[in-house]
């Protein structure tokens, strides 16, 4: 039997692949939903009993179709996701659900909606937008509650059955609790997980119950984990839906011990708890602070707290071409930190030009 870490890494490598046999408990075909973005209330997808996974791009496979439909001003991660959708890389999806976590996701939603309208030959499934917003005001809270309710109703219409919300929230809260415990392993000195490993552990693309079982095993096997003594880096900035940048940074002798993007674990990691749709709406209202939705002040304060918590020695902010929000955060983040900070800006998707890092903060391999 492989270790839990090996199983999680294997699942991570396969994530997004079409499910082999998407059958439900009664033998009927379980609806398959691909979702986009950090603001997705995944509890509702679980509550609806659909097979759901987050759609990811691939820097290695080209993005010509995504470039054509979205334009080159959109984050290449979204362009890659669209390209893969049009190439059928995710198999037969019944629905695509998109959250408004950043402008690229919104633009992706609009492109999916319009392609279905004007180019039905693309055979894209119906796309649905979950418009969760983030200004810290009651007006926004009420709007979010309305949108969460609409999404719940839509899911019930899709599946023809009521949601098991309480059970789903309990399961996801348990996953959050376990992931928080696993994150402590990485924060240990020396780290017991690399950043690359943690990406796989945090989001292997598994149903929540299977994920929970592997996380429990991973914690039980913690004594078998290796030690990673590289220079400790906190990685800030845009999302990393593939391990490429983590591998590039860690191949230079660094170990990424924390991050503030949405593929590095659920944000926030506090539980939703009881309270039904109201609690869920509040939870996602206050998610983050992500580079795309938070103010520079919120991001800087969060960076200072997270760096201390991770005992990071170096702060690396990463900003892709077409994903410029992190570059706006960086000056305030640097000012808020008491460790060295470097900005990698205008980076290619899946690439990290580490010249600045090597020059200013060399790390012996």
């Amino acid at each position, binding site marked *: 039997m492989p270790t839990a870490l090996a199983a999680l890494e294997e699942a991570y490598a396969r994530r997004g692949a079409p499910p082999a046999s998407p059958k439900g408990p009664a033998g009927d075909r379980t609806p398959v939903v691909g979702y986009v973005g950090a603001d997705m209330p995944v509890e509702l997808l679980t509550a609806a009993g659909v097979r759901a996974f987050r759609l990811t791009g691939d820097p290695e496979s080209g993005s010509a179709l995504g470039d*054509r*439909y*979205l*334009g*080159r*001003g*959109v*984050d290449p991660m979204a362009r890659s996701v669209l390209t893969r959708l049009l190439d059928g890389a995710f198999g037969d999806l019944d629905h695509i659900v998109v959250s*408004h976590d*950043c*402008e*690229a996701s*919104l*633009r992706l*939603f*609009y*492109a999916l*909606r*319009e392609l279905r*309208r*004007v180019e039905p030959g693309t055979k894209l499934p119906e796309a*649905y*937008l979950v*418009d969760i*917003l*983030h*200004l810290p*005001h009651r*007006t*926004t809270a*009420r*709007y979010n509650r*309305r*949108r969460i309710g*609409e999404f719940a109703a839509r899911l019930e219409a899709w599946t023809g059955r009521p949601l098991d919300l309480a059970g789903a929230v309990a399961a996801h809260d348990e996953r959050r609790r376990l992931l928080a415990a696993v994150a402590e392993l990485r924060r240990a000195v020396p780290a017991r997980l690399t950043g690359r490993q943690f990406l796989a552990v945090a989001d292997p693309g598994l149903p929540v119950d299977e994920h929970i079982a592997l996380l429990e095993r991973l914690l039980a096997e913690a004594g078998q984990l290796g030690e990673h003594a590289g220079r400790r880096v906190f990685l800030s900035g845009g999302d990393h839906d593939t391990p490429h940048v983590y591998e590039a940074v860690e191949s230079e002798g660094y170990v990424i011990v924390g991050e503030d993007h949405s593929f590095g674990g659920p944000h926030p990691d506090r539980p939703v708890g009881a309270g039904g749709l109201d609690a869920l709406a509040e939870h996602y209202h206050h998610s983050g602070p992500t*580079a*795309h*939705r938070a*103010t*520079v*002040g919120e991001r800087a304060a969060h960076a200072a707290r997270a760096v201390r918590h991770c005992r990071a020695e170096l702060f690396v902010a990463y*900003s892709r071409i*077409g*994903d*410029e*929000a992190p*570059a*706006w*955060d*960086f*000056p305030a983040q*640097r000012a808020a930190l008491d460790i060295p900070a470097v900005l990698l*800006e*205008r980076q290619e998707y899946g690439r990290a030009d580490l010249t600045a890092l090597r020059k200013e903060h060399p790390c012996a391999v």
Partner: protein
Amino acid sequence: MRSVKSLATAAEAGRHQREWFADLRRRVAAGEPFALLNADVPHEIFRTMDIPYAVSQWWASLVAAKQRSGHYLELVRERGYPDYSEQYNAVTLGSAFDPEPEAGPWGGLPKPDIVVGDASGDVTRKVFDIWGHEPGVTFYPLESAAENEVPANWWELMPHRWEQAVGPARLDLLTAELENLVRFLETTTGRRFSESRFREVMALVNEQEEWNRKTRDLIARTRPAPLGVVDSIPSVMLPQWHRGTEWARDIAKRFYEEVRERVDTGQAACPDERARLMWIGRGLWYDMGFYQRFQDEYGAVFVWSMYLAIAADGYIRYGDDPMRALAARFAAFTDQLYTPPWSSEWYVKEARLHGIDGVVHLVSDDPRGSYFTARALEAAGFPVIEIHADNVDARTFDDEVVKRVGQWLENVVLA
């Protein structure tokens, strides 16, 4: 080459703008509150409360026209922020960092007390929020919400059936935000919000935009075109930033009457008109002469820009509840221009209305994209050429564009 304006209305609007700005500076120097507003937020609240304001994008256009955008972007860069991102707002932010603000255009932009912007995109809120960290400046953000399903024919629905076009979720949100904004302004400025004055302002705006609608329709059906966009843009946009005033309503009427007179007397932007061009995208503020560059050699006239057309179709809102009607003006404003199917279907409608022969589409390096606009226009039979540049950052403009457009006119539009 410099652009040449021929309309008295355009010249009058330019004169008024200078006088207004000088008066604004005097009022601010005398201690009145000053607000800096993004273009797509409800200025009507500030008009109603007589709070002096300027529009961020207008200031950026002035800076660009003075060939000074590089200077302000450099100031942004010196603070460590990217100078290649959201330049339309970043140029104006740069003025906040200027050690010699009075050296700016027209004596410089006064320091605002309040900045208001919507949380659209990933960066706009950050730009305004950074401004809000300057001493004495408060940033008031508004949400930017989106909708799942929208009827495509928004321009038919908006004047009276805006509830159907925009949808109640977005309208409830922005209406509530605007009610809160009024309270915030009453508290921080001491000014009062008069409901009857608000209704007057809203009525004046509708009157102004109705005149713009008549002007748009007149230009659309007249051949050769009585004027090009070099005249129509200042004639509509400078008053647009003063909407809700009698001056703006009246100059919109005079603009119509002047165009009417030109039509009646057979005056044309280019008497030998051979091609009617549509300009899609923001104004190329650092080179307005671009729009007249193809008239002599090709008889190609830019008869259409979004500025008059969106005034005609995008602002008019009638209804008994003025705050909700105001929310309806802005809850989906940018969708009208940049989100398919609204944007693409509207551009096709406008191209047909104006008898367009070719479309020049300015595509900036931002997420708005161009595919669905170009696709819709080409499917409807309108040739499209895309040029890639930022509209206020002259560093991004390639001089080869003029040559490319000339070749496209020869080989496609006029072939």
